[in-house]
């Protein structure tokens, strides 16, 4: 394989970036290696774990299966663009608050998939959440806190307060 690179523009988190990159690269590789955006994670490179999920024109895709060349000029959102400046997206806030992010390796993928769900469905049922993140796996959390975080983030985006379900402490 030759090392010749091509020049292309990627619009990531609202900003165009001109990048010289090897044309065989996946979007995941360009984001991580050429743009230094390592928040998008590398879990399997086979489209099976969802850790590399980003939004492409608003739709979740597994960036390890997207050829970078095909998405030049299209709107890409990564975890680095989920917060509004210093203000965390409610999903980020609640993933942090509920411990939905343990080792944290799967979190970006889950949050991006969930953010798209909340865009189109402000009040999802648990089954709708299940469907939206069915392509993501997590080895640490047991998922339940991820679901609760998504439900509470939805409530917060709707302007409601919403309280996390508290598990029980014996004697409390």
């Amino acid at each position, binding site marked *: *394989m030759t*090392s010749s690179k091509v020049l292309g523009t990627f619009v990531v988190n609202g900003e165009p970036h001109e990048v010289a990159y*090897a044309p*065989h690269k996946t979007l995941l590789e360009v984001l*991580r*290696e050429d743009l230094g*955006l*390592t*928040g*998008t*994670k*590398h*879990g*399997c*490179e*086979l489209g*099976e*774990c969802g850790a590399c999920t980003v939004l492409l024109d608003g739709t979740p895709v597994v960036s390890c299966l997207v050829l970078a060349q095909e998405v030049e000029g299209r709107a890409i959102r*990564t*975890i*680095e663009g989920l917060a509004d400046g210093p203000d*965390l997206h409610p999903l*980020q*806030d609640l*993933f*942090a*608050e*509920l*411990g939905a*992010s*343990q*080792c*944290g*390796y*799967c*979190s*970006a993928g889950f*949050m991006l998939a969930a953010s798209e769900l909340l865009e189109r469905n402000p009040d999802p049922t648990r089954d709708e*959440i*299940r*469907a939206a*993140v*069915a392509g*993501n*796996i*997590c*080895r*640490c*959390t*047991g*998922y*339940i*806190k*991820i*679901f609760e975080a998504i439900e509470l983030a939805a409530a917060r985006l709707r302007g409601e307060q919403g309280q996390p379900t508290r*598990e*029980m*402490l*014996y*004697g409390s």
Partner: protein
Amino acid sequence: MTSRDEHEMRVGFAGDAKKITVDVPTGDAPPWDLDTRLTSVGGRTRRIDAVAKVTGRARYAYDVDLPGMLHAVVARSPHAAGRLASLDLSAVAALPGVAAVIPLKEPGNRVRFVGDPIAAIAAQRLDQALDALAAVRAEYTTEAAVTDFRDHPDAPELVRGEVVGPWPGRGGDEVAAALAAAAHTAEGTWICEVQTHSCLESHGLVAWFKDDGTLEVWASTQATFGVRGGLASALELPEEKVRVHAEFVGGGFGSKFGADAEGVAAARLSRLVKCPVKLMLSRFEDHTCAGNRPSAIIRIRAGIDARGIITAWDYDAWGGPGYTGRGGGTRHNPTYFTRAKTRNSHRDLDSATDAGRAMRAPGWPQGNFAMEGMVERLAELAGMDGLAFRLLNDADPIRQAEWRLGAERFGWEQRRNPKPGTPRDGDPAHLLRGAGLASAFWGQMGGTGNQVTCRIHQDGTVEARNGAQDIGTGMKTVMAVLTAEELGIAPERIRVTMGDTNDPVGPASGGSTTTPSLAPTVRHAAWLAKAELCERVAAALRVEPGSVRCEGGRVIAGDRALGFDEACRLIGPTPVEATGRRFRNYEGYQDSVAGCQFAAVVVDARTGVVRVEKMLAVQDCGLVIDTLLAENQVLGAMIQGMSYALHEQRIVDRATGRMLNGDFLNYKISGPADLPDMEAIMFPVANGKNNVGAAGLGEPPAIAAPAAIANAVGNAIGIPLRHLPITLDKVLAALAEARRNR
């Protein structure tokens, strides 16, 4: 002999509290007990590194990118057994981008499994290194190999899933007599398949051998000091010349204790080329070359007396730990057997497959699955409900309380199928519901040999430092909570540093030892720092040192109350610094933690699909340092257990020894679609084992879930399923057989 002070403390829990006198080593912080009023401890603290994780700023080993960094890959044996006959790497070096290639085996060396490393290549780009693999010329003399422990010559004969053949001869007389005297006896065989750890971040590291002869490493590891030691000895360097970082780690579960052959290879390549070298395993390599939970065959014969008390317990197991032939032992909760004659035998059977490694409660989920399955059968023979039978036999006072609490919260009476194998009222004929339960036992109270630095600066900053890693359990947050508690300030104020071997030595994250080993040290460091802070404040204010104390975010000096920051300004430019140590454990309340879990399932008799509808855990971990972190551990372990019970199985081609499902599509782990309703109830116990009362938590909740689910399936379909994972083919076969026999 260390001197010690007698200390009276109240230990146990609300249902079984007692006063004991313990010997506290002189110099240790006064231990917390049931009567201690704690502020930050037991709360719900947001992980102090959570924002880094949810914003994508957290940097894992896989994310490390250094100027001039090369990428390395490993050439591996395609054969399960034999010898490397010749290895020619000359064509590799000439390829574009390749900077270095090293052999990892010499001709004549054995290859022990498909994937055994034989050479490593570093190139400028990963694709160049991968391309270069094709130029490795290796020849092998191959041998016929056993690739499944069931084919080992010493493996027991299995007929229709049951071991046939003699019981071990040695040491069985007492058990044989107890069996002969029993009112009822039962016998059965249980089988478990290999599970892989499946950490989301694969194994690997970046190694940078520098011009000054030092080696700096960023590793995905659960043992920073273990990796340092491993690399230092492999490269013949003093440990001080090796520095290992692991600030964020994408899971470990027992598979990431060492530098591994791959890590050593990366370090050696870096020494050759004097550039940083990155070597991360692919998902396939991670499944096939980075360890697993060994398979097991377990048979048990047991007896009960007329009252239903277990009087005989003969446990005989074989483990399948892969090529090392070691580490396949299984374990089970001993608290049912205090009135039984017992015997425990085990043999490991080697096979030409990747070696087993510790995996979350090594050996326990296997052993408890078999044990709780047999207990279920014994309950049936006694004509008792499974819960009542356990209450009768379980000698653990903590679990006695947990069984009752859990059963009530779970709705055991209502969920248990009184007529196993038949649909509940209102359900269609093909839906079979049932409930099961199982115990968890763990005996880790932590050990000595670590240190923690606590530093208080004059601007009010408080630091707590230890060189061990936080693999996602929240250890950094545990350090913050304990330091904050001791100093009477908020946990968010503590700056915690972990994951750098230049800091004081800490434990590996394994065996649920990290918290009980480190927590008392963290507290000791903060307690010492507090004393010095108070002394300096007293000196500055010219009051009696004994009259100064930290409380509620303030420093009280006689009749004056200073804000914490205000007080810190009095300490001067040299920070207060204290090094905490870990004293040995005290006698305490009990040497083990107890837990139990309940599961409700629905089985579709047409498709064989098992759905877990509800899981509930009650778990003791000594003092609950943070409720949120503790629940997180329990809930995650429950789903890993469910995944083991229903889905996970490494499939190896018996002829070639190759793993056929080394990816996440064909090796299924539980996903969001499988999620049941879940509840975790933390059951705090003042165990009096150390100054905090901390005990291990990572492993125990992983032990009960598979057994509870298997028992629930048995209750639903009326047939015990004794081979994990309980996939739909097994359910359908069992139902078909039951129909034939009807």
